[in-house]
């Protein structure tokens, strides 16, 4: 199964371990990842707001690169996923804007027809690899590990677009957890916001928003939080010491990237998954 792979900015800077884990886990899962050459930023939601035409063109370039290779595009970042889905939708519904974007891309020898299928690693696990094959690949069931899913926003919302129905119904991570043998716990933050998108200019929003959810996960017995998004991971992991100060209580909650959790169950060594790069240490002690 071949995918064009777009790691995004965070997986190549603050969360390099995610990029490394994705490569090693994908290879074990039988995914052939073709990394896009010179993959630039998708613009977060910031560029979409301040310059929608630039946002369209930057993303169309990446979608066109995948299309030129005849490959679906896989990401490991919620916001990048939403950006690609968003641009695909706009370009498929507004031919004049597609023509304008293609006029720009033509100077780079590219054109976009709008056919690139966009998926996220989480969805690839369930839609492309499938539950049965994933279950067969598990060599070490993570029994005894109680995991809280932190979905983040941009692969569950906005509602009524891109196949999203109602974020309360999100079950994809819990489904994966069950296949891997770990127990899912319910808590306040499953589909809440980590505040990353204001974290650079207003850290306290992220700290205040997310600290309470980590505490809720802890109070409900979670041994780790797993997230499909490196932006959420950055807030949950690197800001956790500040959340502890803000809450006045110890959290010590390990935060795992989704490919890391999968990797642990399919027999990848923790060191290869880069879990030692996290600010909050994770020690896999199973029943």
């Amino acid at each position, binding site marked *: 199964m071949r995918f064009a792979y777009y790691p995004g*900015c*965070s997986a190549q*800077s*603050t969360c*390099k371990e995610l990029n490394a884990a994705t490569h090693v886990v994908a290879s074990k899962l039988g995914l052939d990842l073709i990394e896009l*050459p*010179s993959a*630039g*930023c998708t613009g*977060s*939601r*910031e560029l*979409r*707001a*301040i*310059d*929608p035409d*630039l946002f369209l*063109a*930057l993303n169309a370039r990446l979608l066109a690169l995948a299309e030129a290779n005849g490959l679906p595009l896989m990401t490991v970042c919620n916001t990048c996923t939403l950006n690609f889905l968003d641009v695909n939708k706009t*370009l498929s519904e507004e*031919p004049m804007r*597609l023509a304008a974007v293609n006029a*720009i891309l033509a*100077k*780079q020898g590219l054109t976009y027809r*709008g*056919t690139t*299928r966009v998926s996220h690693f989480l969805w690839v696990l*369930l*839609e492309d690899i499938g539950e049965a094959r994933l279950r067969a690949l598990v060599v070490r069931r993570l029994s005894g590990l109680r995991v809280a899913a932190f979905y983040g*926003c*941009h692969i569950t*919302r*906005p*509602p009524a677009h*891109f*196949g999203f*129905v*109602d*974020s*309360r*119904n*999100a079950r*994809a991570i*819990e*489904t994966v957890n069950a296949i891997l043998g770990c127990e899912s716990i319910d808590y306040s933050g499953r589909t*809440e916001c980590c*505040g990353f*998108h*204001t974290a*650079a*200019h*207003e850290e*306290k*929003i992220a700290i*205040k*928003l997310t600290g309470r959810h980590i505490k809720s996960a802890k109070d409900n017995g979670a041994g780790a939080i797993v997230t499909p998004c490196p932006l959420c991971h950055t807030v949950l992991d*690197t800001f956790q010491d500040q959340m502890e100060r803000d809450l006045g209580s110890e959290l010590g909650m390990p935060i795992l990237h989704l490919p890391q959790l999968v990797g642990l169950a399919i027999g990848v060594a923790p060191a290869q998954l880069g879990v030692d790069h996290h*600010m909050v240490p994770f020690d896999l002690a199973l029943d």
Partner: protein
Amino acid sequence: MAERPQVAPAARNFGRDETGDSPAARLARLKEGDTVTAHISRWDPGTEPAPRFETYRVPYTKWMRVLEVLTYVSEEIGGDLAHRWFCANRMCGTCAVRVNGREVLACWEPVEPEMTIEPLRNAPVVRDLVIDRSGYEQRVSGLVPWLERREPYRGFPEPLTHPAMAAADKALDCISCMCCFSACPVIGLGDETKFAGPAPLVQLARVALDPRDGIDRGRIALERGAVFDCVSCYKCEEVCPVSIPIVTGSIEPLKALAFKSLPRKSRHARVFLAIVRSRGRIDPSALVLGVQRLTALRHPLRVLKLWRHGKIDPLKTLFGFRLPDIAQIRQIFEAVRGGSR
């Protein structure tokens, strides 16, 4: 014409069957003669220290909505239940409550077999399900959400086209029900931020995106509305009973106006744009340093710890990483934005 991508959204909908989103699916779980169990929040802040839930059992009638349950409880069971409603037709926006944790219009929401019904968040409770809207209304009026014309009114009928009003069109559907205001996590932080909140910004967008308006709405959005404190979580859109694209249709256009009016004060957006132009990709450390400047280094031990864990790479940040094909990114910037920074 672009071909529509083939998307297989199965993993996005896991759980849909067991929880049933659509009104039809939910109503199919009840039939006449069944009982609806409602746990309703009761509280008189003047005499009671904290809210409590009281449980009521109401006979289900076909196509029953939450408002009918509240009316039944107040008229047939607990005569002193306070709740607010007027039109019962999704127009007046006064009956919003939270059902099973989600903001809804009581008049429009199908009942669940068992449900908790609570007042909206982010506003003081007057009694039971009635909230004090005055704080919200003051926020709205503080944004001057009425047309301020630069040119004198030319009299009726005023020429106005659909394309000219397209940007403001959806915002005009807002019924000020406060569902989004209650769901917004940033508003939930109280005085921690000056963020005006989704509904007040929709009210601002109604006039900011109206071609007849003539004052600097970008300045108002930034200075009075702290529009860049929106975290783009879309929780507001999830609860909007009239399906306004609040983030993409109101808040983002206001951010664009703010950036245009006050680029220096829109620091995050300006630095973000500059980094993508110069490097092709965001280096989060460069972004934080560009936005916070030297205050980003106020916790040197923390910076060292981040470095030790490979979370930051000061050398790359200071000496500039660039994508190998940065010329292609710059070409796109040039084609779309020309010389503007």
